[in-house]
């Protein structure tokens, strides 16, 4: 029962300023081609542990439940705030993963 990304992880906006204090929308298609029937999966967006960027509540992850089956499902993480100085960064990584599972796909958001 392997959940997989079936597209790029597409953030909006793709460029933000320092210090970071912005809301981002993330879109991605996910699929589990071996699933007998659709079932609820918990998806996570994760920020890299080594930087000072956080989701609200100084969390490094945000979760969202989605029902996923054999056919690709379009998933949207709406208006997700991220903040932090990101002083020494050129781009920061946001990774999509299944909760307690492997990384599915990641994107890099440019810092202007």
């Amino acid at each position, binding site marked *: 029962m392997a959940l*997989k990304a079936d597209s*790029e992880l597409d953030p909006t906006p793709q460029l933000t300023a320092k210090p970071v204090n912005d809301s981002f929308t993330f879109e991605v298609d996910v699929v589990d*081609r071996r699933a007998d029937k659709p079932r609820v999966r918990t998806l996570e967006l994760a920020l890299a542990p080594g930087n000072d960027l956080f989701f609200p509540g100084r969390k490094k992850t945000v979760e969202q439940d989605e029902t996923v089956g054999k056919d690709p499902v379009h998933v949207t993480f709406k208006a997700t705030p991220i903040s932090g100085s990101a002083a020494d960064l*050129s781009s920061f*990584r946001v990774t999509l993963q299944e909760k307690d599972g492997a990384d599915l*796909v990641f994107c890099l958001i440019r810092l202007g």
Partner: protein
Amino acid sequence: MGLVCFVATTVAVAASAGATGLGQESGKPAPPPPPLPRLTSPEVRQDTFTAADETAGRNVNVSFTNNFIADRLPFDVPFNVTGTVEPSVRRLELSVYRVSSNVDLGNLLTHLQTTVDCVGQQPPGRRVSTSAVTPGASGQFSMFVNALDPQYYYAFCFVAATPIPTNEFEADARRILGSVLPGLVKQDDVSLSVLKVVHGVMGDRIAQLGAGRPVRATIPPGNLFAEGAKPDARFAQLASDLAESYGNLATPLANYQDSLKQLIADVGTARAGPAKEAFTPELVAQLPPASRGLPTAEIAVSADPRIDRTLYSFDGAVAQIEAVKAKFAEGSQAAADLEAVIEDLQEVAGDARQYFRFFDALHAAAGTFMSYVALEARVVNVTLGSSVLGADLSRSAYVSLDAGVAYPWRLQNMVFYAGANIYFRPVNKAAPLRYKGTFLHRFALTVGITTTVRDESRRAEDLRNTPDNDETSNSLLLGGGLRVTPSMRLGGGVLVFRETDPNPLINQKSVTVTPYVSFTADVDVAQIFRAIF
């Protein structure tokens, strides 16, 4: 003529020394030099100076074939160096060096000819002018040269920069990109320090690529990877695109390998079970072998990653298995075996599709990288010139005639005088003083002869009286002056005249002096002499 001989000899010696050095170094005959962009120009003009030749903006034609400028160079005024280069030359740079002795000139020549930028490290001469120009469509150029000082030798060092076609270094540049990609994804984020390091490594390796070419090439100034350039927003975007696409290859690659392994296993199971007849040679030919891997990241960054994408699409095989599966009872072992193979094929195809999304993105980013990479061949050509006043001796640049009025202190009348101004350096009257107006450009000693000095109150007489003292006689003027305009001068000094003793009982005359101030006009002696002779 003497200067021409000297210069020609210097060039010959320098060229000879360079050839000898190369031969000794290699220990075998030097290979024939590669074809270089040829620099051509009209023949140089002879030394025919006119007033126009000394004015600012004069054109000095350069002969790259003779490697010297026969005309004496204008001094104290800016001028233009003109000529023609091959149309392939996109940029021409000029550095003008000044040297004061023949030994310096030889050292400078030898040094400049070993550089690619007419600078190198510590050139043995003073760089007095630099300019760069994009030649016209037919190769013609005109380059500005700052005002030069007289009585010096000058080396005009040209760098003809010719872009190298991208296809001549593209494969190497893409290999450089491929080699630095792992460094971009060592950390989760792309830090500024990683960005700087990767940018520096790319720049260094591209520079090495140019240095290793038969005709040495360098990264053009202003290029993203030019020496001293910092990673800008373009490079940050490029690095982000490269890291994202390259880093995202790993997950679908691992998924693909797992899926393929599962497919091979499930096909084996199915072929050993009740559905074995479904696997006709035609169907088996459509199934991927265990060895069918995905193209690597190195292939993605190559110029033409020809990949047959149909090898990773199994719609035909799936349809064929579906058709066979329909013949078996639902829930049977045969149907289950075939269903597993169908799922595996769809999984392999899906993983490959996801992989190729980032493969294509990486290829596009590599294309962006290539659009930033540029090299240009740089051919150095040194041409010599001189501002030394040589054979044209009729041109007395140090002396000019002076004519004006002087007011002697405590005498009753002004006197007119004519004299000579002696400068301590050559003077170009056409040079605006606001541009070249140092003390030595303005100052001259004055020696003059006055008209008759008459002053009864001081019983003054001229130094040289005429027999009856009725005609014009002369006294001597000694002093100095400063030019306030190119031809107008304010001066001062002493008037030397004879004075009768104030005691009426003493009929004795003595030579005496009195200060004066003057206002005069400079006249160019050389022009007058040329007009006469």
